[in-house]
């Protein structure tokens, strides 16, 4: 594979599929699904290859490709991966691969257009996670955000116009803030060195003044924080999840939210280490709102998608808490949680989507006793619920424990509340299991069918398997993540004793 542009292949595979899809007869659903499966399995295979081919001993960015784009402005098509990106690329490829299978039965009209937008979105996400150039990063970021609008607006469910409008406005707002920060870094760093460039690798070698770093970190934090979603900019997310079709919810909660966290990590902490050190205690306080308040709202929600949506915002609070520690334990845990939560929440939305397709309701109190009818789905749902509530053996546990252990030194109060919120998570998850699957079955659900056949079971099996594999043997990801976190943290000054 020497010399083969792996990363470009990952980004281009969905894009090429989009072009092919444009010329395909829109009645031929089999062919369309087939193309989508192929287009998403290529990145999956390649990202697995990256996972094993990445040289951890060497560390840093590998598999780099650097092609000048706009020379006069210092814009390059510069892609490459380190440990953190590999984890994220892998997450994306797993989620999209399963999302295609979920859409197989779930999407019945305008199938072709659905896949075109979905694959565009994914190409953007891959681009974000691999870009080493700020402008490229921004470009792919927008590419990932914009297709959301038609995806939710056309294939969404209740209240979709409102949801998609809100989501797009919010994300664009976030993008504006991020762009402000990015441009500011470009100009200030350029003025300092006399060499204007958007290249992150080169920018990360520039030492910017501390006061400046502190100032510019804020717009970046807000910009990417909107996407995370950092409270109080979170309200687009649950409603967006709720209105989106399953596959989009999966990508949205599983991957898109991670882009925000990744941006804080890569751009914020990578380029503005001192700014990060200054702001992280504030983040640690804000994330508390996420954790506590998101969890509590999830507790009171009766619509399962809303429940999982708010729970996501609660979990992303843990991720931010992990970032805020700025030590190896916490940040590694946070990145692992990004991965684990992505898989878990993708599973959650695919399952809720499946149940919704069968029963046409997502209200947990309208459902009862489905375990007898849908044993497979019930087990998968239970796995998801336990993963979400941090049960050992599943991926989330490791990540959460690491975050708590890592954060305990600097933020004991946050840890106490976070650990408490694990109980709350367990409460609403178990309540959902109980009210949806347990007790006597209702007569209304006489005719519903369990997931059967390869296509229906396959996505659930993959996601569950990943949760278990990472849960049992987290080092498979942690070692590689750690190699990325190492370089990142090396530049961050030690927190002043608080």
């Amino acid at each position: 594979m020497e010399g083969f542009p792996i990363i470009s292949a990952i980004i281009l595979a969905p894009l090429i599929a989009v072009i092919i899809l444009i010329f395909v007869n829109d009645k031929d659903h089999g062919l369309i699904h087939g193309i989508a499966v192929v287009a998403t399995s290529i990145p999956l295979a390649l990202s697995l290859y990256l996972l094993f081919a990445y040289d951890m001993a060497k560390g840093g960015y590998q598999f780099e490709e650097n092609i000048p784009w706009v020379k006069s402005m210092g814009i390059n098509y510069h892609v490459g991966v380190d440990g953190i990106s590999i984890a994220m690329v892998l997450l994306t490829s797993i989620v999209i691969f399963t999302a295609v299978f979920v859409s197989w039965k779930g999407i019945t009209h305008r199938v072709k257009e659905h896949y075109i937008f979905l694959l565009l979105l994914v190409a953007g996400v891959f681009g974000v996670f691999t870009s080493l150039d700020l402008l490229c990063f921004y470009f792919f970021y927008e590419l990932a955000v914009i297709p959301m609008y038609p995806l939710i607006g056309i294939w969404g469910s209740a209240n979709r116009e409102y949801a998609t409008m809100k989501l797009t406005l919010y994300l664009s707002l976030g993008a504006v803030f991020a762009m402000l920060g990015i441009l500011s870094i470009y100009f200030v760093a350029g003025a300092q060195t006399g060499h204007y460039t958007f290249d992150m690798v080169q920018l990360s070698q520039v030492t910017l003044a501390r006061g400046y770093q502190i100032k510019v970190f804020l717009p970046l934090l807000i910009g990417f924080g909107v996407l995370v979603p950092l409270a109080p900019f979170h309200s687009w997310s649950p409603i967006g999840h709720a209105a989106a079709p399953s596959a989009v919810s999966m990508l949205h909660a599983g991957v898109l939210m991670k882009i925000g966290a990744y941006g804080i990590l890569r751009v914020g902490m990578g380029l503005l280490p001192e700014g990060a050190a200054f702001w992280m205690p504030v983040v640690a306080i804000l994330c508390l709102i996420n954790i506590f308040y998101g969890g509590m709202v999830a507790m009171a929600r009766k619509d399962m998608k809303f429940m999982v949506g708010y729970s996501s915002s609660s979990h992303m609070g843990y991720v931010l808490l992990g970032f805020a520690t700025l030590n190896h334990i916490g940040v590694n845990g946070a990145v692992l949680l990004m991965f684990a939560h992505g898989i878990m929440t993708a599973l959650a939305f695919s399952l809720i989507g499946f149940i919704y397709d069968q029963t046409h309701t997502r209200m947990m109190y309208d459902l009862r006793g489905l375990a007898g009818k849908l044993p497979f789905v019930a087990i998968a749902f239970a796995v998801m619920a336990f993963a979400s509530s941090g049960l050992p053996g599943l991926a989330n546990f490791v990540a959460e424990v690491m975050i708590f252990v890592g954060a305990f030194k600097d933020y004991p109060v946050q840890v106490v509340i976070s650990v408490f919120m694990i109980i709350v998570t367990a409460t609403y998850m178990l309540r959902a299991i109980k009210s949806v699957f347990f007790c006597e079955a209702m007569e209304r659900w006489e005719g519903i069918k369990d997931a059967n056949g390869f296509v229906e079971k396959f996505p659930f099996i993959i996601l569950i398997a990943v949760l278990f594999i990472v849960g049992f043997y987290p080092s498979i990801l942690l070692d590689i993540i750690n190699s990325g976190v190492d370089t990142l943290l090396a530049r961050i000054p030690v927190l002043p004793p608080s």
Partner: protein
Amino acid sequence: MYIWALLILPLFSAVLITLVTRRHKDLSSYISIGAVLACFFIVLPIFLRFVGAPHTEHLEGSFRWIGVPGMLVEIGYLIDPLSVLMLFIVTFVGTLIHIYSRGYMHDDPGYSRFFACLSLFIFSMLGIVLANNLIMIYIFWELVGLSSYLLIGFYFEKPAASDAAKKAFLVNRIGDFGFALGICVIFYASGTFNFLEIAHQVHAGHLSPNTMLLGSLLLFCGAVGKSAQFPLHVWLPDAMEGPTPVSALIHAATMVAAGVYMLARISFLLYAAPPAATTVIAYTGAITALGAALLALGQSDIKRVIAFSTLSSLGYMVMSVGVGSATAGMFYLMTHAFFKALLFLCAGSVIHACHTNDIWHMGALSPKLKITATTFILGSLAMMGVFPFSGFWSKDEILSAAFANGDMVLYGAGVLTAFITGIFMTKLILVTFFGKKRYHGSPHESPPSMTIPLIILAVFAVFVGLVGIPSLHPNFGSFLGLHGAEHGAEHGFNMTVAISSTIVVFAGIIIGFLTYYTGTIDPDKMYKRFRGPYRLLENRFYIDHFYDNFIVAKIYNQVARISTFIEVNIIIHFCINGPAYLIRHAGLFLRSTITGGVQHYTFFMVTGVVVLIIVYALT
């Protein structure tokens, strides 16, 4: 290496049953029984080796599970007398209960699922026992919680069962909340999770007293949850919704004892911490022991009575750790595992025969269920602590320790508990097996697969106490070789304590006999006279009531509702849709200027031109 098989076999069995042999009931049960039996035979030689030479060096092995700079988590095993003893109990009782379950569950549609869960439980329980570090014990701690959840909710169609399962899991989670924080505290102070390394640091005096106090109390929270101590005891009685073998194995013999095991495991920390730690532990145990014994009086469900007696026993064990004798606690744990498993299995056999749990619908069963009745009575005597049954020796050690500790409140609570235990166990025996016939149908003795485990357990329940006779050497205490607290370290057999406890037990038995057999004391009259206290007992001191209606309904749900209110009304409607509304209406207002009339626009244009010219002319 073969130690790892202890974890791999049951896990493999659980996975295999779930994925492959789900549809083949018998095969599933054989796989599960085979796995636990194999574990037993792996444990047995190690156990015997340690019995033969108690001071053999402990074995430790581990591999790196998570390693990032600053934090190393291992999966490992620590084989020392303490864990060997626990391994023996778990695998031995586990094997018997697996065999028993084959009979008890024989026509249940979820047969394979049951055995898969049992295997999962054995896996997790052995993980707790083997664990050589705090994270690992926490992992398996949670996993036993999971298997307990799955097994309590085994009859998931029953709302009561699914509620009980949820309750058990969540209440345990509250305990684990403290446990997890305790782990963080200990790691923060010592930089390691490994027990031996922590012990080393504790002995070297690297941990400050306050850290140790905080750490021990937080870790104790875990035990409070898992071992169902006051105030988190509420889940255990409800857990009886699960199948009876589960109650015997998980909610009596092994899992609930894991809290005590964990306390024994970290006893080096507890006894090095300031005495406040052990005082809190001792009083928690005493309150639980006494309170649960009282509650047992008010119950009429056979499994509930035994469940409350389990609570009471657990309180005993915890109190024992608290008064400075983890050894006595472990000893009681061992004897308790046998006689309580026995009692539950007998209860299961009775329920199997009568298809009811209510003792007032039984009575005079002893001629029909000879083996069950006999073993039940033996178990009860052991439980009450009648000389020379096993319970006598173990209870005596605890009382001696409490006596030696010097806190007479604790000692008094222990003795009082023994007295009440005498009453309600006598009641249970008499009402269930003797007296008037109140059952329906024709109950008959259970199949051999159920009775043989009963007999084996009965033998152990009767005789296993003998290993703890203090004058023997080596005896149980020296085998275990735990360091006790300084003040309670050396306490031999105390004749005063032994005699006084025997007297109160017999007093209890006599009162029970008079009340429920001869009728000298009329229970109905007693009931009428002490209606208030009795109501209190029936409603379990209103603790569940308080939790459900105050903590959950008032505080927890209200916080959730208020958060949602804030979310929906303040954040979404006001902060987010508010500006949107303003902009929209500003737009609507400005839109009214777009009349579509060309002349309006021209008029504005001309006016604008005039203004511009004036501005130009003025400057």
